[in-house]
């Protein structure tokens, strides 16, 4: 992708030779993205991020439908969707849409039956004509649980609702086949699987049209105005091609690391609990609670020791609050604030996992001691 930043810098809409070369590179990337999703290239729209794609679908649907139908459009969103979905839904609500949130059950999954119950209710209230969009992520970002998207898609078809599946966390880690998923929109972000930051794609099922979020240009078949970010697009294509090639090996490697991590935690650290291990999960994500410890303090101690882990949610200033996702699972606020998210990456090794387990034991113990000192 670097050549597209320098020597081959060109606008793919230009008609000259270098413009044509850029166009060809973009279209090759489109095929690479489509191949990873088992989709058709013309269904792929390049965007700047997963957040943009989520916004585009929700805002586009609302602005396109609001004026046409008798009953206001409606949205059914999982309560632990990414903030870009939740905030776009909130905005839609201020514009007249009816918004319903469906919480996950304690296994970390949204139940298809719960979504269907809401769909039935919306139809009963608003009639058969109103447009309804359901948003359900493929894998939760904090706990890694895989959601029953295919099952929900089937219920959506039954109730003639469209389904937006934010697959940002899952693409590149587990197989994603848009036909098997049955969703109408699928969102991915490049940086989650070694692609460039600021790259993303929105897959839109053939035959579905939404009002574009950005207008004023014919790029991306008029579905997203603005000069293409050729380097990011090319990088995203390469990341997709590599992911398609290595998917099984990657999943094996990540699962092996995680198994070692989780066994190590349970064996060597007293007072820690793993979340949702009985639910199908992404191979790389572990959600673990350290009893009686503030996870943010543990995070800081680990950072100072050279390990990067996360807590639920952080605002732009870096402050931490109790994760709504964990609260939705039925954890108390204190338990949510005691929870760390650990993600293994492809470059990580078994030795690094062992070192992390040792560091977690050491630092969580030090924290418990410090807290006990203050309390006494």
């Amino acid at each position: 992708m670097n050549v597209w930043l320098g020597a081959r810098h060109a606008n793919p809409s230009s008609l000259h030779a270098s413009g044509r070369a850029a166009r060809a590179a973009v279209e090759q990337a489109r095929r690479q993205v489509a191949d990873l999703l088992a989709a058709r290239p013309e269904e792929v729209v390049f965007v700047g991020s997963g957040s943009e794609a989520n916004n585009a679908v929700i805002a586009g649907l609302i602005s396109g439908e609001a004026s046409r139908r008798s009953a206001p459009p409606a949205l059914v969103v999982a309560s632990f969707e990414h903030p870009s979905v939740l905030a776009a839904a909130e905005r839609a609500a201020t514009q007249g849409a009816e918004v319903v949130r469906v919480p996950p059950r304690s296994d970390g999954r949204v139940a298809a039956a719960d979504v269907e119950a809401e769909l039935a209710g919306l139809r009963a209230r608003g009639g058969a004509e109103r447009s309804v969009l359901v948003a359900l992520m493929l894998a939760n970002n904090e706990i890694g649980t895989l959601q029953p998207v295919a099952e929900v898609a089937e219920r959506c078809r039954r109730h003639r609702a469209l389904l937006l599946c934010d697959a940002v966390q899952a693409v590149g880690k587990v197989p994603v086949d848009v036909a098997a998923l049955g969703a109408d929109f699928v969102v991915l972000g490049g940086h989650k699987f070694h692609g460039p930051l600021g790259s993303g794609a929105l897959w839109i099922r053939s035959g579905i049209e939404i009002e574009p979020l950005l207008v004023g240009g014919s790029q991306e078949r008029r579905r997203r105005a603005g000069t293409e970010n050729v380097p990011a697009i090319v990088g995203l294509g390469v990341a997709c091609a590599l992911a398609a090639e290595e998917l099984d090996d990657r999943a094996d490697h990540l699962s092996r690391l995680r198994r070692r991590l989780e066994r190590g935690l349970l064996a060597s650290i007293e007072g820690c609990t793993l979340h949702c291990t009985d639910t199908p999960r992404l191979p790389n994500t572990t959600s673990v609670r350290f009893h009686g410890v503030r996870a943010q303090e543990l995070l800081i101690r680990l950072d100072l020791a050279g390990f990067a882990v996360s807590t639920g949610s952080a605002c732009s200033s870096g402050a931490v609050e109790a994760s709504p996702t964990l609260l939705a699972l039925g954890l108390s606020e204190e338990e949510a604030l005691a929870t760390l998210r650990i993600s293994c990456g492809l470059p990580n090794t078994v030795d690094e996992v062992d070192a992390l387990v040792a560091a977690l034991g050491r630092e969580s113990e030090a924290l418990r001691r410090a807290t006990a000192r203050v309390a006494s």
Partner: protein
Amino acid sequence: MSRWNWNPAPTVDADHAAERPEGAAVSGVPAAARVAIAMSGGLDSSVVAALYAEQGRPAIGLSMLLWDAVQTPRNGRCCGALDLGDARVVAEQVGIPHYTLRLDEEFRQRVVDPFVRDYLEGRTPSPCVRCNTFVKFDLLLERAAALGAAKVATGHYARIVPGDGSRRGELELHRARDLSKDQSYFLFELDQQQLAAVEFPLGELTKTEVRALAARAGLVVAGKGESMEVCFVGSGVREFVEQQVRLRPELAASAAGEGAEPANEGAEVSTRDGRVLGRAEPYYRYTVGQRRGLGIAAPEPLYVLGVEPRANRVVVGGREDLLAEGLLGERLHWIGSDLEAATRDEVTVRIRSRHEGVAARVRPLGDGRVAVRFASPQSAVAPGQAAVFYRGSRVLGGCWIERAARGAELAAGAASWGVG
């Protein structure tokens, strides 16, 4: 050696720190040597970070999210999310790890609610003292210790120096070298344990020097202005109080007393001898010593002498009526153990942060209560403000002003008072 090498703390392990490879975590350094720098994103604490980084002291930056910036959007003040963003940038610039602790709920309970209650009960609050006593040098010290930091450094303008003579081993709190920036008044409630756990590296520097250091270090905040007002209050204190009461009516209920609501209509304005002059705004919009905003025409300027919440009354009078011979205080606090000296001889007392100070005698009454008699009458002794006792540059301690007092009250039943 540059002149801002004020007082290298014994825990510094500069050699060790200097050895660590560029960009490496400070994990190799004994945790005991690590200093947590309280970073607000303002100029002063940013310069502290730059100084410590320059000296190679292992440090981390800690910011506190104290007040929800969405609720009160602000720019360029210590509570705003934007300022905390500056703290992150500065930490990155000087090469230390930075973290933000969310302490807004604790801040509300320990600082904001008492601030609102003070107004509703007719007092003039000192939120910065409370913030130092109960948040910065309490909660933050706790959290920093949990993170393995041996000490907390802040950008306060004050000095900590070792005691001498019989108080060897004790620490003293002193005014800053730059008296125009001195913040020792706001720190009078610190105790020995707290003083032992903090460092005020700017105490020996002038503001001009601090600005020069910021510029020399190329800090992004070098051109930043001062934050003078109460950090969590937006445009107006009164509007803030009303907004908080609307959000949490229970604040008002407890202030007005059992089952009562604080008066919302205009307060009665009267003289000390009960002559009613008219109506003004609700009582909590006034504080002792205030001159403006009464809206009453009088031949001489009128000042608020007292605020009476239950009666919804504001008592006013002339400038000379504001004078008091002393004060009665509560929650008396001494920083050192040599209290006798403090009560035997005259001290200097400052009855608000901008007060130049007056000679006074301090007589403890037991149970944390105290009588303070000024050498000459002082204007605008406001309940709710701190009265801080000094000897020279040293802060001996202080108390919270309950009310102004007449000479007779201060002498009553006190045979030893003022004698000898």
